[in-house]
C-alpha cells in the first residue's frame, strides 16, 4: 500500500460506511487500489446488514429428530493387495480387492489402462442387478470402465461397492 493510501485507510472505511468526505472521495477516484478497496468494503458492509436469524431450537430439533438417515447397504472390504503388500503409492496401476456383504462376496481387479481404469469383477452369487455405467455382465463376471478411480462406485444386487478412493474405511487407496 502506498504511503498516501495508508493515510486514507481509515477514511476509506468511513466512506464505505456512508460518511461524506470530499477529500477522501477525490483520492479514491484517482487511485484504482483504494477504489477497489472501497467497493469491496461496501459489499462487505451491505451483506453484513442482511437479515440473519438463527432458527429457534425447537425448529432445528424437529428437523434433526424427524429424519434418521438409514444406513446404506454396502460391501465391506475383506482384503486388498495394496493393503497387504503395503504398495500404497501413486504409481500403483493394478490392484485387487475382496469385499463382502452378508452371503455375497465380490472380487475386484482394478487395472489402469490408458487414461482410465478397467474394473473386472466376479461375484459368488448370481448377478441380479448391476448399477455401473457401461457394464458388461457375463455370468457371474462383469467389467466396466471409468475415467477416474473415484468414479468407480457401483451397486451390485442393490448393495453399494464404494470407489476405492472415496471410502475412508477402505485401505485400497492408491496414491494415499
Amino acid at each position, binding site marked *: 500500500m502506498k504511503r498516501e493510501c495508508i493515510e486514507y485507510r481509515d477514511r476509506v*472505511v468511513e466512506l464505505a460506511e456512508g460518511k461524506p468526505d470530499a477529500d477522501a472521495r477525490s483520492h479514491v477516484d484517482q487511485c484504482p487500489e483504494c477504489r477497489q478497496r472501497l467497493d469491496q468494503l461496501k*459489499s*462487505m458492509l*451491505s*451483506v453484513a446488514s*442482511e437479515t440473519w436469524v438463527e432458527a429457534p431450537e425447537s425448529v432445528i430439533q424437529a428437523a434433526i429428530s424427524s*429424519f434418521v438417515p438409514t444406513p446404506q447397504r454396502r460391501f465391506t472390504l475383506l482384503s486388498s493387495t495394496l493393503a497387504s503388500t503395503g504398495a500404497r503409492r501413486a504409481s500403483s496401476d493394478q490392484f485387487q480387492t475382496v469385499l463382502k456383504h452378508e452371503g455375497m462376496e465380490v472380487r475386484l481387479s482394478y487395472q489402469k489402462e490408458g487414461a482410465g481404469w478397467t474394473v473386472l469383477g466376479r461375484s459368488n452369487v448370481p448377478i441380479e442387478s448391476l448399477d455401473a455405467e457401461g457394464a458388461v455382465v457375463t455370468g457371474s463376471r462383469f467389467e466396466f470402465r471409468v475415467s477416474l478411480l473415484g468414479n468407480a462406485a457401483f451397486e451390485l444386487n442393490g448393495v453399494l461397492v464404494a470407489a476405492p478412493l472415496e471410502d475412508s474405511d477402505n485401505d485400497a487407496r492408491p496414491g494415499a
Partner: protein
Amino acid sequence: MRLDSDGLERALKRCRRGDQDAWAQVVRHFSALIYSICRRCGLNADDSADVFQTVCTQLYRNLDRLEKAETMPKWMAVTTAREAVRVKRIGDRNRGVSFGEETTLEEVLQADEEGAHELAARAELALQLRAGLAKIPERCQKLLTLLYFEDDVAYGDISETMGMPVGAIGPTRARCLEKLRAELNRSKFFEVHVSDISSGDSLSV
C-alpha cells in the same frame, strides 16, 4: 455450528452412512441460512418452520446426490428460497393479494423465480461473509460483530464490552475489516458482486 468445507464434506459422507450426529451437524450448519431466507421473504414463524422442515426433507432425500461440499450452500439457498417464495405466494393468494389482472401466470412464475434467485444469492453471500468472519482473530470478530452485524450498538457500549478506549475503535475496526477483506478475497467472495445481485442479475443453479 460452523463447519468448514472439509468438515461439511465429511459430515455429508457420514450422513450417507446413517450417522445421525452428522445429520444434526449439517442441519445446524445451514439452520441460520434457511431461517434467514424465510424471514427475509416475509414468512411468519409458523410458515418459516414449515419451510425449514420441507428443505431438510429435500436435503435428506438428496444426500446421495450432494457429494461436493462447495455446491451445498447454493443448493440449500436456492431450494429454500424457492420454497419460501412458493409458500409466500400461497399465503398472499389466501389473503387476496394479487399481482393485478393483467399479469399472466408466466410473469408471476418468472417474478417468483427471480425473487428466489436474488434471495438465495444474498443469503449465500451472508453465509460466506460469516464463514470469513469466523476465520479472523476472535477480538476482531467481536468488534466487527458489534459494529456491523448487530443493530445500533453505541460506541460507549462497544468500548466497555471490548475494554478499548472509544478513540481506538476506529483504527482497530479498519485493521479488522482489512483482515476480513483479505479472508474474503481468498474465498472469492468478491467474485459475485452484490450490486449485480440487487439489479436482478441472478445466479444460475
